[in-house]
């Protein structure tokens, strides 16, 4: 320790020796370095916490591997009780405008939270296509009767295999496809009013 210059300033006595003038500057820099690191770290953590609060940063969020690609091939049976046509990937080519593909289940609580937003979009004429994930047909039908049906088409993915092809890791998940059927955006989690206004509406406009 003896030959490492200690950083505690000695009151009154000026630094002896020839290293005095440049030594002092380096010493001050050494003292400020941890402070600077702490300030930078603090600012980073503050930004992260703020982002978590406003929903712009999700530490568990994972980018989708399918963005920029066409939907994987699938052909799902319809939910007969809902009276909707079945749903296959061939329905996702040459579209009149951008569409949303929503993975949901009647047993999924966040799906109830996002449902009013999906209803609103479908009322506005946005095509929302549903994939019912690991659900019983009767439960799914009851859900749609109770909360309304926003879907233009609805496929049942009871084994959950199609969801895996899409890279779904938990319902609800929503994908936005452009007119060419290319996946442009994925949202894992409920479509809250904020997500609707800040993400979906601008995307719909951009890909219209």
């Amino acid at each position, binding site marked *: 320790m003896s030959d490492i210059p200690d950083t505690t300033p000695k009151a009154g006595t000026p630094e*002896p020796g020839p290293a005095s003038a440049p030594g002092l500057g380096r010493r001050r820099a050494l003292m400020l370095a941890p402070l600077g690191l702490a300030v930078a770290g603090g600012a980073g953590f503050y930004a992260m916490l703020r982002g978590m609060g406003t929903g712009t940063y999700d530490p568990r969020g994972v980018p989708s*591997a399918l963005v920029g690609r066409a939907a994987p091939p699938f052909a799902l049976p319809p939910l007969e009780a809902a009276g909707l046509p079945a749903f296959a990937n061939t329905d996702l080519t040459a579209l009149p405008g951008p569409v949303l593909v929503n993975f949901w289940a009647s047993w999924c609580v966040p799906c109830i939270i996002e449902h009013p937003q999906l209803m609103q979009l479908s009322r506005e004429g946005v095509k929302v296509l549903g994939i019912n994930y690991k659900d019983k047909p009767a439960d799914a039908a009851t859900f749609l009767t109770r909360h309304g049906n926003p879907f233009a088409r609805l496929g049942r993915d009871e084994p959950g295999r199609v969801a*895996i092809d899409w890279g779904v890791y*938990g319902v609800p998940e929503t994908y936005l496809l452009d007119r060419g059927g290319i996946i442009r955006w994925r949202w894992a989690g409920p479509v809250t009013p904020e997500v609707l206004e800040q993400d979906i509406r601008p995307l719909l406009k951009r890909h219209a």
Partner: protein
Amino acid sequence: MRRLALTLCLLAGPILGGGALAVGLPSEMLRDPAQEQRARDIGHELRCMVCQNQSIEESEADLARDLRRIVRERVAAGESNAQVVAYVHDRYGDFVLLRPPFTLATAALWGAPFIALGGGLAAIFLLLHRRRALPAAAPAPLTPAEQARLAALEDDSAR
């Protein structure tokens, strides 16, 4: 007593089991032990996207069970380990790989240990360098005031 038993069980788990495995059901396992071992090796490389800190072999999540089944199906169908991993990677992206590939985006992740090592070596080198350089500069002689103070202190401690 119950706490002790629980502690023992928790201690014995990893020792006896060699790491927790969620594949408990014989129906999930492949008949061929070699294939089953391959499926496990692959599964240990794949992250459970639901729990995010376990491999699909360790996780009880529904999705992990589905992925274990897919891995076993593909192993049984004769695919190579790389082909099976590519199948899952294709759908879930880099995050599903517990050992992420080296790309521009993961360069900092892979490089961090080497940067830390380099920084440490540089610090050691600088300190040694300075230690060797320092004795050359002899300490300045004491000023008369300091000599007087030293004498007073010595006088003080002698008494």
